[in-house]
C-alpha cells in the first residue's frame, strides 16, 4: 500500500507493506535511526515520536495508520543546524549517559512543552512516566526539561 504523510515538516510518500510498524518505517525506509526500539511492546518509550501533536510509541502504530498524519521525530526538532533547547539542555545537564532513552525522552518532553509551555515538576514527571532510563536516575532529565521550558519562547 502507499501512504502519504508529513515527516518532519516535509510531505512524503512511501510504498509499504501493511504489516510495517511506524518505527520500522522511520528507521528502515527513511533512515531516521534516532528513534530507538527497546521493548517493542509500549513499555520503555525509546521509540516515542510525535503524531498529530501527541507523543506516541512508534512501536505500537502501524505505518498504514499514518495516512495523512503529521509525524515529528528527534531529527526534526533542530532548526537550521542549531539544536533545540531540549537537546542543548540534556547535554548540559548530564541527562544523557548511554543515550538510548534520550530521543524518546526528548520527544515526550517536546510534546509536553507543545501543550504546556510552563509545566510543573509533577507534570514533567507525568509526561516522561512512559520513558525508561537505566542510566541517569531521572533527576538530570527533569532538570533539563525544566530549564528548557524556561528558555523555549513560543
Amino acid at each position: 500500500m502507499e501512504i502519504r504523510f508529513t515527516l518532519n515538516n516535509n510531505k512524503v510518500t512511501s510504498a509499504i507493506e501493511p504489516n510495517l510498524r511506524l518505527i520500522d518505517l522511520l528507521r528502515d525506509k527513511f533512515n531516521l535511526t534516532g528513534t530507538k526500539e527497546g521493548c517493542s511492546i509500549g513499555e520503555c518509550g525509546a521509540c516515542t515520536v510525535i503524531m498529530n501533536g501527541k507523543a506516541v510509541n512508534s512501536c505500537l502504530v502501524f505505518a498504514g495508520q499514518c495516512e495523512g498524519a503529521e509525524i515529528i521525530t528527534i531529527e526534526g526538532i533542530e532548526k537550521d543546524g542549531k539544536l533545540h533547547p531540549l537537546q542543548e539542555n540534556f547535554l548540559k545537564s548530564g541527562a544523557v549517559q548511554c543515550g538510548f532513552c534520550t530521543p524518546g525522552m526528548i520527544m515526550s518532553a517536546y510534546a509536553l512543552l507543545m501543550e504546556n509551555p510552563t509545566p510543573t515538576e509533577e507534570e514533567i514527571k507525568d509526561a516522561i512516566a512512559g520513558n525508561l532510563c537505566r542510566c541517569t536516575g531521572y533527576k538530570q532529565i527533569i532538570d533539563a526539561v525544566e530549564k528548557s521550558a524556561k528558555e523555549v519562547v513560543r
Partner: protein
Amino acid sequence: MIPVKEILMPKSVDEVCRLIRDNNGLSKIIAGGTDIIPGFHIESPRFENIERLIDINNVDELKSVSIDNNIITIGSAITFSEIISSQILSEKLPLLVKASKTIGSTQIRNRATLGGNFINNAPCADSVAPLLVYDSEVKIKSFTAERIMKLQDFLVKPYGTRLKPDEIVSQIIVPVPAKSFRGDFYKLGRRRAVSISRISLAILLDVDNGLINQIKIASGAVTPIGTRFYDVELFAKGKNFTDESMKEISIKLGERILQVSGVRWSSEYKIPVVQQVCYQLLKKIERGENLI
C-alpha cells in the same frame, strides 16, 4: 512476523459494519493498537491469522462525546487522553476520568481507546469498574441491526463478550448519576506508571440522613472479570453509615470476591487488601476527601 496483509480506513460506522459483515475471522477492528500490536509481537493466539485490519480512528461518530437529558454517549474509539481532557466527562463521570489517568503512560493514553479497553474483556481493564458503577450500557451495531445491552451483561467471561463477529461496539451510554452520589476509584498496581492493575475498586454512595440509601461497588483485576456486587450493595442498603457498617461492608465484599474468584495463590494477601481498600474508600467518602 505480523500476518497483516491489508489495513483499511473507513470513514463511517456503516462502512465499518459493511467491512465486518462478511467477517471470516481474518479481519479485526483496530483503534489505538496498544493491545493488538504487542499481541502480534508476542504471537498471541488471540491474533493468529489476522490478515485484514479495519482502522476506526477516522470515524468521527466513534470519537465524540455528547450529553442529552442526562445521558452521556461516548464513542468507543475515544482515547484516554481525550477522556481526560473532556469537560463533560470530568464534570459528570469523574471516576472514569480518574481511572483513565492511571492507564499506561502518556504515549499509551494518546492511542488506547475506551472500547479497546474492555472489548476483549481482560480482567485488568481499568475502565470497567467505573463504567459498571455508572450502570453503563453498550450500543452494538452490525450492518443490519443495532442493539443496546448493559455492560455487565456484555462482559461474559475472561476474554469473552457477547459481541458477534459481524458487530462493533459503537458507543458507550452512561446515565449521569444523581447529584447525591459521592464516590471514588482506587487502583493498585505494582508501580505508579505503565502498570497493570492488580486490584481496582470503584464505589458510588448515596447517604441520606446518616443512612445508606444506595451503594454501588465494582471491582476489576481481583475478580476474573470486572464485577458489580449487587448482593453486597443490598446488604449495605439502609444501614447506618458508621465505622462499624463500613467494616461489615468491606468484610462482606472480601468474602464475596473470594467466592467469585475462588481461592488462588494470591488470595491470602489480595483479599485483606481489597477489604482495606474498600474500607479506606468509604472512610475517605465519610471525611469528604473523595473525588465527587
